């Protein structure tokens, strides 16, 4: 299949899943009734479609694209297929930022404080990883650095929540670690979208540089790629995307690992081609996972990250096994 054909198929999959996400929900609104209500906005079904299901589906697309795209970009930059926002602590850093913004009351005073703080947390986490493991991109160093950053950010998040006078601290910790799109509103969509778009523009522009980097830093630099600039693009682009995604949906893992890995098989390994394809693939995977949370156990508030981890962790193990055999 050609590159273009794959992109078209992925776009169709995203569109189909978006529609399914709009039409599937706990209350038995029929598909036609639901679509009509979406356009007219009348009555209780209109409210459900416009204020509950539409933001949820839109966030599914945005958050999924953010995770897929930033995963592909980080992998290209670190030349390592294990680099993933959830595994290397970017999402955990973003969650810490978001929790601090909420618990200090900054968020209540100023709505943009939430994405800004999450962005800052994600940015610090990415910068730390690049500093610790960036030059060589060796899998072991990367994963160990990721564990350290994740553990630190996770512990700090738990600490902030434990110190906060909230009886829901335990539930909050689960949300920030596992993510969910339940009961998000248009406010969240409006909050996240500008950051997601800006981050996507930055990351999609890194394609040629990441391609050249396949031949190593020296060769890339000799081909006119500014590594310093590329590094900044990766840090800012992924901080914007992962930060905004985590601020509204919590930390959802493994999307950025599974999607580029699958696409590499059908699309080839060229980083510049993987970027847009992974954004679409990530959106499709997240929408599918979010639909599954509603279909499998509608009453139980299944967390999104639980499903992506159940799919993603075996992939991760298989990849580690394969790498172990190759070296």
């Amino acid at each position, binding site marked *: 299949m050609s590159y273009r054909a794959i992109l078209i198929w992925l776009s169709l999959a995203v569109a189909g899943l978006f529609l399914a996400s709009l039409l599937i929900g706990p209350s038995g609104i029929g598909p036609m009734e639901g679509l009509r209500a979406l356009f007219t906005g009348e009555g209780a079904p209109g409210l459900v479609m416009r204020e509950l299901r539409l933001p949820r589906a839109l966030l599914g697309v945005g958050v999924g694209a953010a995770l897929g795209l930033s995963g592909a970009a980080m992998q290209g930059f670190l030349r390592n297929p294990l680099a993933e926002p959830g595994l290397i602590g970017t999402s955990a850093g973003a969650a810490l930022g978001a929790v601090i913004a909420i618990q200090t009351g900054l968020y209540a005073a100023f709505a943009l404080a939430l994405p800004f703080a999450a962005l800052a947390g994600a940015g610090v986490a990415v910068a730390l990883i690049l500093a610790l493991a960036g030059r060589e991109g060796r899998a072991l160093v990367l994963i160990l650095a990721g564990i350290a950053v994740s553990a630190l950010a996770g512990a700090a998040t738990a600490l902030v929540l434990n110190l906060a006078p909230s009886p829901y601290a335990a539930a909050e910790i689960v949300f920030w670690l596992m993510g969910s799109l339940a009961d998000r509103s248009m406010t969240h969509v409006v909050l996240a979208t500008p950051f997601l778009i800006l981050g996507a523009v930055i990351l999609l522009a890194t394609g040629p540089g990441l391609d050249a980097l*396949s031949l190593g830093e020296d060769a890339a630099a*000799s081909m*006119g790629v*500014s590594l310093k600039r590329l590094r900044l693009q990766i840090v800012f682009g992924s901080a914007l995307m992962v930060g905004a995604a985590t601020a509204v949906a919590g930390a959802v893992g493994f999307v950025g690992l599974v999607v580029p890995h699958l696409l590499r098989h059908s699309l*080839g390994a*060229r980083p510049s081609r993987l970027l847009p394809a992974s954004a679409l693939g990530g959106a499709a995977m997240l929408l599918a996972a979010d639909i599954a949370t509603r279909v499998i156990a509608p009453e139980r508030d299944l967390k999104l990250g639980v499903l992506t981890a159940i799919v993603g962790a075996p992939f991760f193990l298989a990849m580690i096994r394969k790498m172990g055999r190759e070296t």
Partner: protein
Amino acid sequence: MLQLENLTALRGQCPVVDTVSASIGPGELIGLIGPNGAGKTTLMRAALGLIAHQGDSSLARLDPMARARAAAWLPQAREIAWGLSVAELVALGRLPHGRDHGAQGAEAVAAALARMGLENYRARIATQLSGGEQARVLIARALAQQSPLILADEPIAGLDPAAQIETMEVFRAHADAGGAVLCSLHDLGLAARHCTRVWVMDRGRLVADGPPATVLSRALLADVFHIRAHFEDTAQGAVFQALSTLQR
């Protein structure tokens, strides 16, 4: 094509490349020789402007894109991070020419593949090839860059004899077509046979610069390499054979 004036590169306080002045013109294939740690790699990286340096290099002065069109660089580490196809990998050499998807770019890639005998490898995955084949693919990438000057760091290390000779011949042809190549190597025999000129480095300094026959003298071989060798200009070209080491 390349002018170096008092080029110096430091590691800490210690000069790894020490006030090197030299130049390369069209048609030259220059063998950069010297013992391990003499500063060959550092000299080339400093000349390209990839590391901090003092003094002047005509290449390092260019902005990165213009420099990439003027000189291609083949690092010693033959790094291929992803399972790219051979054709994709070679096409990476077109990057400095901007969004050049047109006929010219495709032509350059095809020519580079043909030059390295890789026409039948186009769809093969580069990481699954043998070391020698990977080296050829990476050289093809540098050729596809179509820069007049090529700097190559030990491009023939680890290749079989036929591949070594073929590589030197590819470089020679590039020089004969009006380009130039600066290529570091340890095989003095190949340097003597194929290079139009050799630069000898020792402890960061450029200690000799000239045709192989005059540079590879008994005294220099003893001083710099601590070896004794046989050198003869035969009907089949220069023959150089290291014979024994000397007491240091």
